[in-house]
């Protein structure tokens, strides 16, 4: 219990992942959903770095985590641009109200 190993990091990352999933599920604010996505991405890269450190002993996990960070930044920029347009069109950020295409 006092020796920190792979399992500790994996369980912490699993907890973060489930928190992110729950945030994505229940929040109706679009920016809140984006926050859930960021939590999930962070949990994934924590897993990658933990495997790189404790399992393989290779650098690959860290490099892939680096790409995850780049992708998350790109995704956040585009998502915020879309949300601002959404807000300009509908005057709200509630994702349940964006049902204009509902047939």
């Amino acid at each position, binding site marked *: 219990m006092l020796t920190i190993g792979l399992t500790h990091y994996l369980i912490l990352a699993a907890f973060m992942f489930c928190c992110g999933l729950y945030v994505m599920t229940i929040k109706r604010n679009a920016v*809140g959903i984006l926050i859930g996505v960021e939590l999930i991405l962070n949990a994934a890269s924590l897993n990658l770095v933990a495997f790189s450190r404790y399992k393989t002993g290779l650098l690959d996990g860290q490099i892939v985590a680096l790409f995850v960070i780049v992708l998350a930044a790109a995704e956040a920029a585009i998502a915020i641009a879309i949300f601002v347009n959404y807000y300009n069109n509908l005057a709200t950020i509630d994702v349940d109200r964006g049902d204009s295409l509902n047939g």
Partner: protein
Amino acid sequence: MSDCGFRMEDSRQGPVPVFRLTLGAMLCAAVLVLAAPGLALAQADGGATATETAANPPAQAASVWEAVLFYIVGGTVALTALGCVLSTNIVRMATCLFGTLGAVAILYFLMAANFLGAIQLIVYVGGTLIVIIFGVMLTSKSPWVKFNPRPVELLAGGAVCGLLFAGLAVAMWGADWGRLTPNPDGFEVAHIGWSLLTTYLVPFELASVLLLAVMIGAAYLARPERGE
């Protein structure tokens, strides 16, 4: 939804809660004060044991330091992630995300991924989070706006996520990970640069193309409407 101490009602826009601000600042300072020397000690001892190759007392001390730090910082990660879930206020969610990202950066340092921890602080905490806060400011009429989900959604989502976490935790706790080969030294930045320009050259170039596309796309989406 009972939001467990994260309540921030419309009627409470008056004075800033000085007490809670002070408490939060003191907690952050305590984590930092504990983290800095602990990290230094853990990494120094880890490096020493790596070169000496013998099982000696410093390794024990480093291991204990690492455990203490992991539980403090990991607890911060878990609590702030839970804060993101329980808070119904978008500003509070962004603040909790700030705590989570910063604590994950400390965990990267703890795993001797120094370069990645620095990048996490610079790009994630300094960039992505600022973009999110811009988004919060641009998309709400009042900082206290909130949309409450229906109870059935809360229940269903909570059940699914709780079951998922329980399953994952049980599976990971019982899993046999085979031969573990930890690297106490971590890697130098030069290795990451070398790897990016050899093995990972194609993803690296694709990432730069992606960033260009994102820049053009965001500028296109954010341009003002022209009446035609």
